[in-house]
């Protein structure tokens, strides 16, 4: 936690383990849980219309520190939230005297979630006569993904194929000559790949000889670079302000885009300061043009353009050597 607290908080770590996941009362295989990624994937092809899930947790608090500290009435709670449905479910965990771990179950009701929920654990206690103080929170929250089959934290950008020329989506028609389009207006940024653009899908599959693979990598890197640039601009333009006019850290993909790109766009600034700076430049217009090269650099770095370009150059050189030799 980075907030300053006007009372003593825990120094020791809070460790969270997911012991079991159930939907509609049936336990799922543990392959839906990834401990290193701290992610749970709840989408089940076999049971798409499940209603009622639950996640069993086991938590270790820094018990020695708690025993000696100024805290009383210590409780340990699991907090499941999802911003898009305004859902917040909090459950108290029970302490097991023998193993001195805390355990309990958090309900996941399908009707109350849309997409991805966040599960975190906090220790709460009475400090200095005030009840309900948060004295510690696990360093990293778990991701509960309701749409994924495999438990991964970092989501890839969605890629969808669409026929821009003759497909059902009318609004894509003016773009019929474009090989791809990046859409950032929705919940998740999407790259629309134009299937009426001959050869693009085959090219991106890029199996076969090293030259084909290199070309595929190069095009993929270019698409990714454009996607990162578009996402960055969109996230900056969508920033919400608080009462004092300072930009708030957004949620969802906008947050992760800004968090990953701002250190390259405005090097040396802390996230909050970089956010203010980038917002001011965008809103007031000063220095926005100068920032473009930084944005471009950050995006091509994320998209691994340099790496893919080197690979392509080497592959071409080698194929030419092969021809002349």
């Amino acid at each position, binding site marked *: 936690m980075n*907030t300053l*607290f*006007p*009372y003593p908080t825990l120094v020791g770590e809070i460790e969270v383990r997911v012991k079991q996941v159930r939907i509609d009362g049936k336990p799922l295989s543990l392959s839906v849980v990834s401990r290193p990624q701290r992610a749970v994937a709840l989408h089940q092809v076999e049971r798409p219309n499940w*209603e*009622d899930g639950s996640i069993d947790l086991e938590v270790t608090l820094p018990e020695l520190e708690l025993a000696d500290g100024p805290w009383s009435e210590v*409780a340990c*709670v699991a*907090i499941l*939230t999802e*911003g*898009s*449905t*305004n*859902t*917040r*479910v*909090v459950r*108290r965990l029970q302490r097991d005297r023998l193993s001195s771990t805390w355990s309990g179950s958090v*309900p996941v*009701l*399908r*009707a*109350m*979630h*849309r*997409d991805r929920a966040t599960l975190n654990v*906090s220790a*709460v206690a009475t400090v200095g006569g*005030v*009840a*309900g*103080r*948060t004295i510690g929170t696990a360093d990293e929250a778990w991701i509960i993904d309701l749409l994924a089959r495999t438990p991964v934290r970092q989501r890839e950008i969605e890629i969808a194929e669409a026929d821009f020329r003759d497909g*059902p*989506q*009318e*609004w894509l028609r003016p773009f019929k000559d474009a090989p791809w389009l990046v*859409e950032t*207006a*929705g*919940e998740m940024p999407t790259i629309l790949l134009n299937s009426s653009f001959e050869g693009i899908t085959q090219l991106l599959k890029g199996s076969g000889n090293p030259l084909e693979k290199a070309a595929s990598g190069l095009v993929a890197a270019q698409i990714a670079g454009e996607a990162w640039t578009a996402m960055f601009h969109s996230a900056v333009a969508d920033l*919400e302000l608080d*009462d004092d006019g300072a930009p708030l850290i957004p949620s969802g993909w906008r947050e992760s885009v800004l968090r990953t790109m701002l250190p390259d766009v405005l090097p040396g600034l802390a996230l909050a300061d970089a956010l203010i700076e980038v917002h001011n430049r965008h809103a007031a217009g000063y220095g926005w043009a100068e920032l473009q090269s930084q944005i471009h650099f950050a995006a091509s770095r994320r998209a691994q353009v340099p790496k893919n370009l080197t690979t392509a150059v080497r592959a071409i050189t080698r194929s030419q050597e092969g021809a002349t030799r």
Partner: protein
Amino acid sequence: MNGSGVDIPDRLAHLPGAAASKHLTRGVLTGQEQPPRVALLRASAPIADQSARWECAPLRELLEEAMRRFADSRSRADAWLAPRLHATLRMSRNEAADPAIWNFLALVAAPDYVIWRHRSPAEARNGEPGSVSPVRFTGPHYNQAFARLWWAAELFRNGENYRPAEIACGNQDVLNTALRLDAIDHRPTALAMVRVLEGLSASGASRLGDRVNALCSAVNAAGSTLMYDVIAADELPDQDGLRDWIEGADSAPAVPWDRLPDGPDDGTAPRDSVETLTRLFDKFQAEAPLRIRKWQPADEPSAQGVSLHKDYV
């Protein structure tokens, strides 16, 4: 067709955000042009579920009545409409979290309502027509013209009782400020804030808007170190009650206009929890500093008395 000249589709559908924002031209935002219906319908995806809850006619009837009732004071329509919209468009949170349904409602089914409710007055100076901010058509749940009302009703109702939601939506500062806070996702917190607001209005407190905003800031700030959920526990909503209510949409009569409809019978917040937080927030409210206004008619001497301003002839 109806009196307002908007051609209404039979059923709601999903309109993707990209397609929606593309058609928010200046003409549409000022209300001088209708959004292009054919193109929007083509870009929309139908809803597979055949339930009566996706029919447009009951919603239109409600919106037209709101425009008639509150012709003189459009912001007052919010408190009347929010519970009735929620009880007409019966959805789970999962369904309501999809912006595509709100985009469709605003751009295809009721663009006239969005213009009526949110158009700024015409700019006096150069005679330019007033316009609506694009976020009222397609925007986050606390901005979009219909999503904000539905979510306010959802977050401030107490089980089937919409009265707290009606009080909350009667105050624009609650809709504009409190609806953005994560703190109100905890039901006893939301209900306690309404109680404090109710007390303030009843006592005739001055600068109610500033007080509400100060309360929101205080509740939010204290919430970063105080876990309201532990001080004031809540229970999970009863999913069977909610499901029955949603399924009942097919046979339910139209919502009443002169008394509040009943919401889903999915359980109320524990009374003790709401009372504990009401006491706490009352204290916050009494201690919270009000925002300093640039104009404070009572305390500030008029410009004439201390004038540094000279009239040069």
